[in-house]
């Protein structure tokens, strides 16, 4: 009933059909290339030529641009201004405010850093939008990730919305008993215990029940497990992954060679 805490958007696209590992490798490669590439315009190019088309291929344009407006733009903008003002490089002063100088060099540097940040967040946003968390975890477990680790990640994603719903019920129950949660500060302080203790206690009980429930289904069994979902890993996936790894290596080599 409760939504999982995830960005995943269910669509039918080429990107969605890629193996989750391929998508992680894709996101990481984009980030690494944007960091290591020796050329100034690489990050900007990656954003326009790789990420934006991928967003459309993945059919998540609406969701991506919404999150870009809400999250990426403010973060990148903040970094841009901080870098532009406080980066003590360059001589060509363009703008001066009190003791802060904006030079042509610091401006260019800030623009590069801000774009790089945008590329990093975008690559991961794209990955999260097109990959279901449990699909990712079952694929990684299949490849040897300890199931305990996968459980910690997945259960956190599940428990948070559940706790939120539980907290809502507790608030409703205590308000029905005349608990004032809306008036003065001191009254609100007093209302913390009736709200928090059932939540903490209930969550502890739930954790224990959950542990028993999954153990009853053989969670710690050493035998090889089967999976309900088959996650595709085609030869094209392998091809893409190796291609990306080579691209990253090339950009590192170029960086070392040219500098």
């Amino acid at each position, binding site marked *: 009933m409760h939504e999982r805490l995830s960005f995943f958007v269910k669509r039918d696209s080429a990107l969605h059909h890629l193996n989750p590992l391929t998508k992680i490798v894709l996101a990481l490669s984009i980030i690494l290339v944007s960091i290591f590439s020796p050329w100034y315009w690489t990050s900007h190019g990656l954003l326009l030529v790789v990420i934006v088309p991928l967003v459309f291929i993945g059919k998540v344009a609406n969701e991506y641009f919404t999150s870009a407006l809400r999250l990426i733009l403010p973060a990148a903008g903040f970094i841009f201004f901080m870098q532009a003002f406080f980066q003590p490089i360059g001589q060509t002063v363009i703008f001066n405010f009190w003791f802060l100088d904006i030079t042509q060099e610091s401006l260019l540097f800030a623009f590069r850093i801000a774009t790089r940040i945008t590329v990093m967040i975008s690559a991961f946003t794209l990955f999260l939008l097109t990959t279901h968390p449990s699909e990712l975890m079952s694929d990684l477990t299949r490849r040897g990730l300890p199931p305990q680790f996968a459980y910690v990640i997945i259960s956190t994603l599940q428990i948070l919305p559940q706790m939120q719903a539980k907290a809502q019920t507790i608030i409703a129950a205590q308000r*029905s008993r005349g608990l*004032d949660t809306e008036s003065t500060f001191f009254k609100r302080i007093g209302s913390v215990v009736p709200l928090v203790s*059932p939540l903490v206690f209930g969550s502890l009980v739930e954790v224990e029940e959950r542990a028993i429930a999954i153990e009853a289904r053989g969670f710690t069994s050493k035998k090889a497990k089967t999976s309900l979902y088959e996650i595709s890993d085609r030869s094209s996936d392998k091809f893409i992954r190796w291609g990306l790894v080579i691209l990253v290596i090339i950009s590192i080599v170029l960086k070392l060679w040219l500098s």
Partner: protein
Amino acid sequence: MKIEINDLRFTYPTGLEALQGISLTIESGEQVAIVGQNGAGKTTLVRHFNGLLQPTAGSVLIGDWDTKITSVAKLASRVGYVFQNPDEQLFSKDVGTEVKFGPRNLGYSKDKTDELVKRALTLTELSDKTETNPYDLSPTWRKMVALASVISMDTPIVIFDEPTTGQDALSIARIAHVIAELRREGKTVVTITHDIDFCAENFERVIALSEGRILLDGVAANIFGQDEVLAQTYVDPPQLTRLGKKLGFKETVRNQEEFLTSLRGTSDSE
């Protein structure tokens, strides 16, 4: 105290239309059971009674208070609401303090509070457990603590959300006793229940909800007679009612007493 609901509509933020125009009057001192399938809107409806939910359209009046302009904390003095899961409200280190929480919030004097707490504890048979930590009690007794902690608020209207779920026969009898006592005191009791036998034995008026609308509303005997309509909201009449119908009784019977009377009546006439 009277509850007046006028063309109540409620839509959840998700777009789900949980209530689609409900008009209803519950008179002071009435005992009403609300039945219906899961998702019929039962809990959504009663959460409007104490302002936890605000109508999307229409109005809910508790006595002369409109729930739209009255705070939940204030409505708590008129409407007591026992939630389904006691673990989602118990927090005190002992039963006595827990039961005292409600009346203290309502600002009653110390003497009145003590008296109300004592009465609630006696009614729920918890008098010997005042010092116990609620979490050391069994779930059945925790339910009684939750009941006591709302009854102690001495509200003219008391709502129970599925009071008998997961309770044994003894505990159900205890809950029935509490409801009977509240009736004797002239309080209005509204109960959501899936336990149709409990409903038949303790309530005069039954309201069946289905998909956000009132399907049936009336005297229990009449409601249970209409098994085809009830089937729409996945409610089966009580076993004795069905047996009585199969035996060809003229009257719809609800409980053992009525069943036996009808049975004797039929055999006498033969």
